[in-house]
């Protein structure tokens, strides 16, 4: 006979009960409110002139130690010389070498800025720094984290195993991989968190000449975005430049906005907010993004695991006891 029956039942059922009673730490659940001190970016496509100053400076100021594009033995920032002359940094999309990009949308003759018909618009794509980030919940090793104070979603290279579940999980297609490297990293915007200590902020906002990208606390950015939506098109408004509370203002006529702040509710809300004159789905933003909190979908499964453990162990032990009651050794 294999094992003393009482011992078997005691061990197995005991383990089951112990595990079931041990609640999974609540910290495992993602936050759902934006932290009060959280920072972010408001991008207003109607103000963007497509100069790509943000791209140039993003690449430069992130190619330093602790920057989002830094790697140990780099001599130059990771340029993408895709044109035949090979003299311009000309990325076509976000990549392992580009974490912020300005794209252009054109329809018909493309004459009128921010118009649905025969119009054009720019758009700026980078990490949205979700309030409940799917990538952070998905990462098996904690290589992606959300700062509890400023809310920045950042990457810890030393932990990453390169499973790329973050790429699958992200609803905005943000994390990019260094496919051509033998020891690759995930690359994404980290909101220039390495510059905060010296009193600086996101390079894309600092070097934006028109105030299309402004940096600030998310609570202030939300107020600013809603204020702009309430403005009368054609009236003049003093748009802040660089930061939301900046004393530098750019007076300009207000354009006609889409009546939606992208990032207010998408995927449970993000710290990057967008305004545009052209519908967001035309600009390439997924229309089917859920307003729900993505990590909740997996949490629904994970939270059941202790119950399954208890049920299988206790049920299995009981079954074993019943089916082996007549066995007297072999």
């Amino acid at each position, binding site marked *: 006979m294999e094992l003393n029956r009482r011992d078997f039942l005691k*061990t*197995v059922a005991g383990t089951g009960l112990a595990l079931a009673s041990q609640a999974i730490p609540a910290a495992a659940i993602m936050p759902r409110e934006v932290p009060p001190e959280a920072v972010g970016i408001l991008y207003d496509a109607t103000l963007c002139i497509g100069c790509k100053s943000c791209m140039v400076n993003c690449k430069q100021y992130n190619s330093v130690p602790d920057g989002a594009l830094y790697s140990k033995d780099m001599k130059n920032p990771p340029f993408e010389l895709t044109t035949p002359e090979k003299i311009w940094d000309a990325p076509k999309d976000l990549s392992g070498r580009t974490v912020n990009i300005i794209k252009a949308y054109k329809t018909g003759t493309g004459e009128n800025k921010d118009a649905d018909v025969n119009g054009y618009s720019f758009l700026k794509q980078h990490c949205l720094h979700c309030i409940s980030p799917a990538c952070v*919940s998905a990462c*098996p*090793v904690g290589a992606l984290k959300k700062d509890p104070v400023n809310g920045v979603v950042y990457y810890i290279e030393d932990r990453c195993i*390169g499973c790329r579940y973050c790429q699958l999980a992200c609803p905005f297609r943000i994390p990019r991989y*260094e496919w051509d490297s033998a020891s690759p990293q995930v690359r994404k915007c980290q909101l220039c968190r390495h510059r905060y200590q010296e009193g600086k902020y996101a390079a894309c906002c600092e070097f934006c000449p028109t105030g299309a990208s402004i940096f600030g606390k998310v609570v202030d950015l939300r107020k600013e975005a809603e204020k702009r939506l309430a403005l009368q098109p054609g009236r003049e408004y003093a748009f802040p430049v660089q930061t939301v509370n900046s004393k530098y203002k750019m007076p300009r006529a207000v354009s006609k906005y889409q009546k939606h702040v992208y990032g207010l509710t998408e995927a449970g809300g993000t710290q990057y907010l967008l305004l545009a004159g052209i519908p967001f789905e035309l600009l390439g933003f997924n229309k089917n993004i859920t307003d729900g909190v993505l990590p909740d*979908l997996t949490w629904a499964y994970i939270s059941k695991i202790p119950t*399954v453990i208890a049920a299988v*162990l206790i049920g299995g032990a009981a079954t074993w006891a019943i089916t082996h009651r007549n066995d007297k050794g072999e």
Partner: protein
Amino acid sequence: MTKNNDIKMMTPTTIVLFIILVAGAVTAVYRMLFGLGAATNLNDLWPWGFWIGVDVLGGVAMAAGGFIIAGAVYILNWKKYKVIVRPAILNAFFGYLLAAVSIFLDIGRSFRIWHPMVMWQVSSIMFIVSIHVVLYTTTLATESSPMIFEKLGMKKALGFVNRIMAPVVLFGVLLSTLHQSSLGAVYLIIPTKLSPLWYSNKLPYMFLVSAVMMGLSMVSFETILSARVFKHKPHMEVLKGLARGTLIVICVYLALKVFDLISGAGISAVFNGSFTSNMWLLEMVAGVILPLVLLSMKSTRNRLNSIFVVNILVILGVLLNRLNVGIFGVAEYASMAGSDYFPSWMELIVTAAMIAFAVLGFKVCAKYLDLYPETQH
């Protein structure tokens, strides 16, 4: 009994498999030296491809027979199935080895594969999956160890493993239940990327039930095949039992899928003629409905050849399901975003080598270990 002299190692099939294995090993070294971009067609819109779809999802599903048969024999005390418990467990062990090696090659920083073991993240399905791969591979090794101990004449170790076998098997049942379902749960976080034909909040249940379906068929398939190759008589009663089991699980699975279709994407979604809906139909008709019809006829369940055909249908059907969830179901989203994917020849050769490794490994074990203790040669 020292070895089964009936089993010849130097057959043409073995030699071909060996060549594939060597080619795969060379390719794997190339992948390690030059990175994923050089060896695969993966890209930022296709972070996962053939290796995850076939080797990991398929390999693990194929291994489900191990925990079912072990559970039936050691927990339910169904003595009839004792003759197939060793090959079923060994089969599962190779399935998991295959998945583990593929994960090693697929992750960008292979030598950090141990990180999840020390950097626990309970909010991550991927963490739960990786813990299970490690624990269950260890469990399967323990469950297989009596064959090795017998061979080496280690009586004490053999006695110890046999004494703890029932709790080990129960632990294996638990790990498998969680692991099979958690592979489905991996995809819960992509409601906007995976086609509604496959996306469902019941994905964990579907993965578990379909894995059981495939596991039973795989054990039956492998029993018939090895009886042929190793020239012994298959136990018809065991095969009939497995066929009945498969039939019951297919019914449950079909009910689950149909209910989900009606409450989700809607019936019309599978008849719109698109590539995605045709893949769904192919998977369901060839892999679920046809086996169901065939198995419900008693004449099928009594004939070796018919059972064999049904087994192949079920196995390919579930494999296709994993490919659909892992690759074809996200194709529409990825091509909308501007990227297509077809595995590179290096990805294909590595997968072929994995399968060759499992077949060869199984054959070596059958020759040198007492894999079929109650079968006379």
